[in-house]
């Protein structure tokens, strides 16, 4: 079997493979950095001092996977049914169902909490188009 213009074709193929796999070797080590959301805001530390442990409105595992549905349901409850208090099924405490006046009062570190995972997963929720995000120091940007 004879490969006509073999040299050109092989060089072309090598260039193609190089370009096609560029994103993979370019990002080696970078993207694999695990997102590490921080739960160490002053409000959370205060909570820990008062109750002896860090706790959210539901368990950590639940919040990790289902928080988006929970806050969707909260919105319907508040806006449409006028029920503003949430009674936790995990610790039976009452919480104000509100992003600005609830969630973000503890999680005042949006960049190190929300964005940490959302950026990693490349999801762009549009909460902050309307809801006012907490003021953070610029140094957190990096």
């Amino acid at each position: 079997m004879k490969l006509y213009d073999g040299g050109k074709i092989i060089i072309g193929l090598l260039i193609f493979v190089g370009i096609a796999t560029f994103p993979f070797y370019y990002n080696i080590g970078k993207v694999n950095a695990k997102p590490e959301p921080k739960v160490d805001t002053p409000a959370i530390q205060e909570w820990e001092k008062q109750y002896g442990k860090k706790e959210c409105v539901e368990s950590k595992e639940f919040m990790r996977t289902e928080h988006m549905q929970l806050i969707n349901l909260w919105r319907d409850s508040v806006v449409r049914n006028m029920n503003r208090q949430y009674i936790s099924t995990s610790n039976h405490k009452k919480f104000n169902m509100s992003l600005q006046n609830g969630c973000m009062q503890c999680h005042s570190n949006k960049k190190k909490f929300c964005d940490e995972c959302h950026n990693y997963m490349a999801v762009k929720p549009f909460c902050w188009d309307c809801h006012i995000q907490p003021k953070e120091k610029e140094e957190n940007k990096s």
Partner: protein
Amino acid sequence: MSMDRRQFLKIAGISSILGFGASVANATHPIWVKGLDPSQVEPNKDALTAKRWAMVVDMSKFKTDEDFKKTIDACHLTHNVPDFRNPDGSVDTRKEIKWIWKAAYENAFPGQPNKFMDEHLKEMPFLVLCNHCDNPPCVRVCPTKATFKLPNGITMQDMHRCIGCRFCMAGCPYGARSFNWVDPRKAINPERENKEYPTRTKGVVEKCTFCSERLEIGKMPACVEAAPKGGLVFGDIEDPNSEVRKIVSTKYTIRRKSDLGTGPAVYYLIGGSDHA
């Protein structure tokens, strides 16, 4: 076995629902399917409640420009309503967002004025806002149920659901709704914004909510608190002992365009400046 296209699609459809659907349903938490249990939520214990919220605007109490300004600013600052201005400082009426504003008598009550009416009445501005109608056209035309009636009579809206079709603006006979043509944050002073309330985004329609969010935590509407004493009276019109009911049942009040059958819940007491 031969099979026509229709049969194939039927079988393919059913099997994908059974297989795929079942695996998805099993993989997710029940909260995605069942939502919140009623036992998980309750109203705020301080909430003000009513069978039917209503407002009386006593025009005799609004004497100076400052009286109007104070009332309007209180609302607009509480709800992060943008203030679009032209380069010369006048209001940019093409982008303007209004929750509560001033209108001339002939605009607020078309059909009422006559040629020889009281000059004062003719010239005086009226405080107008969403009328929270019993039978609101905006709710009827909204294709996404973004605007809806709460059981207490408030015509409420869920900004998350608004698709910006502006049917409600065409439906509303009071011009109570404003559309966000541009990002409202461009015209909100970050130092004066209310951190407890969201802004809106480009492409949604907004209006007065009778301060539903304040009533639910036990506060009176922002405009009522800021208005001159007795200028705005707010309460449950179905409660025979409420102040609004007493005013409406003992004095002559008018409502805007009540002949349209929308059943507005904002009543105007007009008595010139020296009685009522």
